[in-house]
């Protein structure tokens, strides 16, 4: 006996009427890609998520469907996940002193006080 559905298309599929708990025979994994999205010209490409695809061309097609169905998008990148080298979590401390490097920043240089002091002294002198 096959399954009777409210949807005639499903009834026509003649699906078995008993639950089938057998696992899938083969489990195929396509590779994963990371997707980057540029929402307007001039902006950065931003990572928006990942997907499965058999190759980069297909990944791009699927990325358009998955991440650019609505709202603005002018460009997409896909990168094979395995091609990304990320810094290690255990190495987080390599960034620790970064906020302290004031000598790299404009705000680390304050000269007005010295100039004003110098000017005042010259006036007096």
């Amino acid at each position, binding site marked *: 006996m096959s*399954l009777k*559905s*409210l*949807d005639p*298309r*499903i009834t026509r*599929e003649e*699906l*078995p*009427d*008993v*639950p*089938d*708990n*057998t*696992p*899938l025979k*083969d*489990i*195929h*994994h*396509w*590779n*994963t890609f*990371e997707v980057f999205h540029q929402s307007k010209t001039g902006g950065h490409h931003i*990572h*928006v*998520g*990942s*997907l*499965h695809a*058999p*190759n980069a061309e*297909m990944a791009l097609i699927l990325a358009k*469907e*998955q991440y650019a*169905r*609505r709202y603005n998008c002018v460009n997409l990148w896909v990168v*094979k*996940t*395995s091609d*990304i080298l*990320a810094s*290690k*979590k255990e190495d987080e401390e390599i960034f620790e002193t970064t906020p302290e490097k004031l000598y790299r920043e404009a705000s680390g240089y304050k000269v007005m006080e010295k100039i004003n002091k110098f000017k005042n002294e010259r006036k007096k002198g």
Partner: protein
Amino acid sequence: MYGGGYIFEESKNGHKEEIDPVKLERFESKIAAGEKIEPADWMPFEYRRQLIRMIEQHAHSEIIGALPEGTWITRAPGFRRKLALMAKVQDEVGHAQLLYSAAETLGKPREVMINDLISGKSKYSNVFNYPAVTWADTAIIAWLIDAGAIINQVANSKGSYGPYCRALERICIEESFHLKYGHDNVVFLATGTPVQRKMVQEALNRWWPPIMHFFGPSDKISVHTETLMKWKVKMASNDDMRQKFLDMYVPKIWELGLTIPDPKLKKNDETGKWEYTEPDWEEFKRVINGDGPCNKERLAVRRRAEEKGEWVRRALMKDKEKYTVPLS
């Protein structure tokens, strides 16, 4: 879309996890400070296990949830509604993809999850084991089931696991279209001819019990739930979410002159809480364990789709390529 009906498992007796107290303390203080946990961060085994389970169930609910509405695409009344319904169904399948990706970052490959769904090992939201009998059922689903899903998803998007939160943020934006679309359809029928009004009322009557089931039974207060709340895996109690839903949507249903098939339903002015007939949790259990009107059909349809697509996946497979866990 998924409710609070998540089936969280009690810890397995056999599994005693050796937890490094320093790492645990760092992990918990991060969460307490509102920071997110990312895939490469240290996390307790139990956190990973419960998250995989929850995100996976959520993903299955999206993909199975597309089926009751999907059957109405060919019969949608009018071209605009057909386009809109196709867009909604595509969104739901897209939500499943986003969620599978988030769960994959925790170490369970997507195809293994799909296998567990098809072979009946994993659960999905109970509501999708009920049929969409008429077009009006699709309107009620898109409005009220999606409304419930939004309440749940907005709460979860403030959880602690980064990839899940990011997926939910994308999802919530699309859900707001589903909600508006569903409301529009219900309003159209409710303000239409007597036949249309009758149709939408009957659909509401059919869907009210599953809607009340949607957020799941009252949570048992246990150390287990407390830990899940502390780790921001579970974000709100099932009853709180149900109250929130009633607060937001009962007035909107009533203003259309529709009735809700529960004579006890009313807001208690003193407590500010809704009172209602206790949902039939025996039925909930029976249906979630396989004995609902559509369980067989949903899984059989999903299995057939998987089997029919198998040759395509195989033809495009590159044997030498190894699967990589997505980054985030």
